[in-house]
């Protein structure tokens, strides 16, 4: 790093923190930014700032949203009695692509993982519970990631929802084991939705 002027070194350092970006890629990106015009750089910087300023969590499902309530929760054609629970907002995108699912979502923003010091209080389970208590929820679909943390989270939710009279199912079939839901292709996901199991 000592070969770079300090501001460049700082930028490379920041970029390296991003997921999937190693030192080499960070260096390439940094020089790309340096080679860009003043306007381009300002627009990029503004866009980054903008996304943080203007995107909030949907007050109903915790999905990222530019408004108080996200477009899915607002959509009146959707079945609000069925909730699909996912770990991240990006999982909603994968699910929506199948076109099969007509219910609404709940985003946990994480999974239970003792190794990372994340327990049930660190993911959005309280808001899930209030939703279930207040709204007339009939069915819950657990679509947490098919890895051991996602599995533990799903099992925990099953126990949590035991007192309620709700149909609970877990998406498990045909998904690539150990992978993230995001990477599952549409066909396997559709199949998974058809074959969801009651737990």
């Amino acid at each position, binding site marked *: 790093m000592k070969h770079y002027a300090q501001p460049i070194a700082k930028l490379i350092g920041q970029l390296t923190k991003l997921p999937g970006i190693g030192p080499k890629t960070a260096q390439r990106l940094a020089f790309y930014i340096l080679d860009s015009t003043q306007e381009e750089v300002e627009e990029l910087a503004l866009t980054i700032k903008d996304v943080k300023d203007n995107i909030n969590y949907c007050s109903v499902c915790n999905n990222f949203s530019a408004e108080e309530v996200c477009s899915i929760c607002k959509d009146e054609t959707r079945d609000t009695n069925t909730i699909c629970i996912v770990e991240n907002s990006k999982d909603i995108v994968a699910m929506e692509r199948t076109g099969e699912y007509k219910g609404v979502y709940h985003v946990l923003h994480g999974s*239970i*993982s*003792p*190794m990372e010091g994340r*327990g*049930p209080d660190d993911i959005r389970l309280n808001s899930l519970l209030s939703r279930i208590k207040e709204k007339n929820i009939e069915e819950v679909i657990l679509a947490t990631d098919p*890895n*051991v*943390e996602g*599995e*533990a*989270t799903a*099992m*925990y939710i099953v*126990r949590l929802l035991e007192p309620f009279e709700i149909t609970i199912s877990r998406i498990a079939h045909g998904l690539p*084991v*150990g992978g993230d839901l995001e990477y599952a292709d549409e066909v396997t996901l559709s199949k998974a939705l058809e074959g969801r199991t009651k737990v």
Partner: protein
Amino acid sequence: MYLTGLFLNNFRNYNTLELNLNKNLNLFIGNNAQGKTNILEAIYLLSTGNSHRTNITSEMINWNQEKAYVKGEVSRKERNFSIELLIENRGKKAKVNSNSLKKINELLGYLNTIIFSPEDLELVKGSPAGRRKFINLEISQVNSYYRHNLKEYNKVLKQRNNLLKDIREKHSSQEMLGVWDQQLIDLGSKVILKRLETVEKLGILARLMHRKITDGSETLKLKYKSSLDLSNDLSLSEIKDKFDKKIKSFRQQEIDKGYSIVGPHRDDMLFEVNDINIRKYGSQGQQRTTALALKLAELEFMKSEIGEYPILLLDDVFSELDGKRCHYLLKVIKNKVQTFITSTKVNKELSKLDLNKSFYRIKKGTLTSI
């Protein structure tokens, strides 16, 4: 199955090496520290994605180079293919028929090998961890479901151990164990069941081999020793039940210790010759005969699982085995198992062998055919 060709570039003390291999026997003769084991290491690497003697990838790259490359041409019953490995300081990348694999451990199963080196003679008297590694690799090479379950089990184990520590330090409540226990039991029971099956099969095969090597004077028994105190012939659900009960009865101990003390990661294998525990009371010769019988049993086991013999890598074992054991070993592999043998000198038993074979002399990373 067999290797038809091997190509090394900047691997250990080899600059460039291109070898056409004999379908039966390939013999590498050379003084110490010339590069004999390095060749076997390269073949093992093609088979498992890992070295059999180091966990540090960079050690395999020639000191004066940045990266190394290993390629093998494999011929199997149904298909021929190539395996390539690029070794760099930051890691390894593998290709099969020029298609990149996502992860290096996806290599397992393409080329099956069994390696037998002087350290393997320690298998019997060594630590339980060595025997678990042995059984895990044995099954993983032929069963991808086992491989998957074991990998997931180890992840659950890590999470659970973290949680146990948290509970001990009062950062978390005992209730949280439930979701991990369930997975530990589920995956762990599958691992145990497969191991039980395998140890039984291996046991029968090893007993036969052992009896022949000892002219029928000794009877070898192989037993799976589980932390769950299992008896034979249990079904998966029975194992799960036992696991569940055991875990509950060890609850407080596990919390006090801060890690899991029940499960397949604590299990072991037991060797008995004429009903005597050979690890504790066997002579060195008995322990070696047992290890040899076990290795030969592995050959037959893999054959029965995948329908063809794996490749056998014998590193310097002839110096450690007496004439009779050598003779028997060679008789078993003759004409059916592609074998790579390293030795410092041409052993009497080896030269007597009337078998299609290739001899090479190795000197400072250079091979000459002899």
